[in-house]
Each structure stands twice: as structure tokens, then as C-alpha cells.
């Protein structure tokens, strides 16, 4: 009788439960809590959190190679590089490049923020991570989730879950991380600088931009082609005004569908044996470091540009060079409004913000060119 009860018990998941799995459930529940109660990137943290729980269920085999449901999502969606470019298609359809085209000089702030990515790469390498791992960790500083996933899948797939979770967590914390750095690096006088009124951008310029930008970026960094070409295709849908159905599908239904698969797949990579390692603490530390340094280098580049410009730019805009769209642009606007309530920086900050997306993709392309 007892042996039958025992064999029944052995056929359940309870017999195979480990403390590591229970700990990962706690991580999953925490992410779900942050998504629901704190509204921290809920569209991603909620499916990621649930994916973590699903991937750490004993005997369920949801991540079993070749068979598991989550493994299929992960393999065909992420390893086959389908989901991140589709997210970029939706992002392109949602992005208005007009603020950038109206003030093209601000595009350099998107490059300035990438200096932080490369400084972090160097720091992580110095602390013992391999070149591929260092690149995957450093790209977190670009504050671009799909690019982080795209690069990490190719260079250090064992770090995918940790890097993606760090990237999305810090993106949600942009309003907490960025303002102190921005205030520290700027004077009140600098924060009061008002931007010159933007010129009107013609519809033709908005149509030409995605085509020319694709050609130039892919010629320079061919490895960035999947991301940048889909970003610009989505933008062309938007600006052409003749494929409204494709435009709306890209930015709504398609984006929502792939976000579900992306979130669950990322969560599923966070098994106890992948996550409960000392390296992960360093990944989160370097991710934060990358974010902070990228913010600082963006602001410092804006100050450097002011040394040569006759019409000064507000250096706070440099912080929007990290590509957390539109969160960091909003943060710039709020910090600017603290100094002068009537200084509306949001539209100007959107320029470097979308330039940051382009800059991060180029940075990822350079890493891939050297390390893949």
C-alpha cells in the first residue's frame, strides 16, 4: 500500500521540486507583481514572469529541446531571429522621425550614449567576462530590449534571460536612474536653455529617410540588417500613408502577438541552473553601470557640442540618447520642467531618443562584425 502511495508521489512534480525552482517561482511572482502593482513595463514583465514560472515546473518539460512548447517558441521565435525584427517593424510603424529630421544635429546625441556601451564592454571584459559575454552585457546600456535579445542570442545565448531581464528592468527604472545623473552633470543655467523652434518637415523627407537610412546603415554594418531594415520598413508603412492597414497591423496586432511570444520565451530561458549563478549579479551590476554611463556620456556630448555651437542646445537632451523610447524623452522633459515649467523639451528629446535606437543597432552591428 505504502509503496503504491510512494510511486504515485514519485509520478508527481512534487517529488522533483528543488529549492532552485521554488526560488525562480519567487522571481517570476516578483516580476508579475512589478508589472501589475507597479506598472513596470507590464507588457513584457508580466509574460516574462509567467514564463519563468512555466520554465521551472518539474516534469513539465516545457523547455525540453525539440518537444517543449516554450522551447518551440524560443527556438523558432528567437533563435531563428524572427521576433526581434518583427518587434522592430512595429516600433518603426510607431516612430515619428520628424523631430530628428527637423533637428538633425541632435542625432549625434544618439551616438554619444553608445559610448557608455563600449566603456561597459571594456569594464566587463576587464573583470573576466569573455568578449562575447561582455558585448551582450554592454548592449544593455543601449536600453533597447529587442537589440539586446538579438545580440545576446547570437553571442552569448546562455546569458539571454539575464540580459533581457536586466534590460527591461532598467528600462522601467529610467525615471529613477537618469534624473540624478542629469542634475549632477548640468548646471541650472544649462537646464534653462530653450531650444530653437523646429522647422516643418515635408512628407517627402519622411518617406526618403527610411530608405536612405537603411541603405547607409546596412552598407556600414551589414550585421544590423535584420533590425534596421524592419525598423525602417515599418516607418515607411507609416509615412507612405498608402498602406494604413499594414501600418496599423504592424503597430498593434502584430506587435502585440510577438510581444506575447517574446516575453514568454525570454522568461522560459530563466531556469534555476541558468539564473542562480554568481555571474548574474555581475550582469545586473554592469547593466546598471552601462545605463548610467550611457546617460552621462549623452549629456556630456551635448555639453561638448555646446562649446562649438552658436545656438546652444539643452544638454539634458543628451540623456535621451539611450533608446528607451519614449520613457527617457519624458524624463528629459520632466527634469527640464523642474527648472522652467514653460520649457517644453519633449518633442526635441524625441529626436535623440529615436537616434538612440539607430545608434544601438549600429553598436550591435559592430559587435557582431567582430565577434560572430
Amino acid at each position, binding site marked *: 500500500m505504502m509503496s503504491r502511495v510512494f510511486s504515485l508521489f514519485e509520478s508527481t512534480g512534487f517529488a522533483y521540486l528543488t529549492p532552485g525552482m521554488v526560488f525562480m517561482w519567487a522571481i517570476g511572482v516578483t516580476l508579475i507583481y512589478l508589472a501589475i502593482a507597479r506598472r513596470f513595463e507590464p507588457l513584457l514583465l508580466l509574460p516574462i514572469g509567467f514564463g519563468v514560472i512555466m520554465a521551472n515546473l518539474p516534469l513539465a518539460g516545457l523547455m525540453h529541446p525539440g518537444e517543449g512548447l516554450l522551447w518551440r517558441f524560443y527556438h523558432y521565435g528567437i533563435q531563428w531571429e524572427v521576433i526581434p525584427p518583427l518587434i522592430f517593424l512595429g516600433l518603426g510603424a510607431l516612430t515619428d522621425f520628424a523631430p*530628428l*529630421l527637423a533637428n*538633425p*544635429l541632435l*542625432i*549625434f546625441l*544618439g*551616438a554619444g550614449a*553608445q*559610448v557608455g*556601451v*563600449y566603456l561597459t*564592454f*571594456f569594464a566587463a*571584459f576587464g573583470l573576466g567576462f569573455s*568578449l562575447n559575454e*561582455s*558585448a551582450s552585457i554592454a548592449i544593455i546600456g543601449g536600453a533597447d530590449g529587442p537589440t539586446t535579445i538579438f545580440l545576446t542570442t547570437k553571442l552569448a545565448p546562455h546569458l539571454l534571460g539575464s540580459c533581457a531581464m536586466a534590460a527591461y528592468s532598467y528600462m522601467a527604472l529610467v525615471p529613477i536612474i537618469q534624473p540624478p545623473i542629469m542634475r549632477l552633470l548640468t548646471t541650472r543655467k544649462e537646464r534653462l536653455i530653450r531650444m530653437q523652434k523646429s522647422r516643418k518637415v*515635408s512628407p*517627402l*523627407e519622411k518617406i*526618403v*529617410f527610411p530608405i*536612405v*537610412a537603411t541603405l*547607409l*546603415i546596412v552598407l*556600414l*554594418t551589414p550585421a544590423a540588417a535584420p533590425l534596421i531594415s524592419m525598423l525602417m520598413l515599418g516607418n515607411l508603412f507609416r509615412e507612405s500613408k498608402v498602406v494604413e492597414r499594414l501600418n496599423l497591423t504592424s503597430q498593434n496586432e502584430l506587435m502585440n502577438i510577438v510581444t506575447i511570444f517574446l516575453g514568454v520565451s525570454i522568461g522560459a530561458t530563466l531556469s534555476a541552473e541558468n539564473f542562480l549563478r554568481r555571474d548574474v549579479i555581475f550582469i545586473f551590476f554592469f547593466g546598471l553601470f552601462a545605463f548610467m554611463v550611457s546617460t552621462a556620456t549623452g549629456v556630456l556630448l551635448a555639453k561638448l557640442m555646446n562649446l562649438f555651437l552658436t545656438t546652444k542646445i539643452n544638454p539634458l537632451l543628451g540623456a535621451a540618447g539611450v533608446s528607451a523610447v519614449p520613457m527617457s524623452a519624458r524624463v528629459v522633459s520632466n527634469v527640464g520642467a523642474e527648472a522652467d515649467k514653460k520649457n517644453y523639451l519633449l518633442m526635441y528629446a524625441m529626436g535623440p531618443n529615436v*537616434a538612440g535606437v*539607430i*545608434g544601438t543597432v*549600429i*553598436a550591435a*552591428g*559592430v*559587435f557582431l562584425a*567582430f*565577434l560572430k
Partner: protein
Amino acid sequence: MEQAVTIFLAGIFGVFLGIALIYVAIRITAIAVDRFVPKKDPA
């Protein structure tokens, strides 16, 4: 270490070069549109 330094320098150079190319393209497009595309009569 040598490869890390190379990637570091090439990365910063590559990002700024890419952004500079896009900047030039935006400026040229804006000038071309302004010069060659007929403006609509506001009336």
C-alpha cells in the same frame, strides 16, 4: 586584450560614422527637397 581595444575603438568610430552619414543624408535630402520640389501655393 588587443581585440577588446580594437572593438572598443572601432565600435565608437563605427557608431559615430554611421550617425554622421545619416546626418549628411538628412541634410542633403532637406536641401534637395527645399530646392527642387515645388511648394504648394498656400492660396
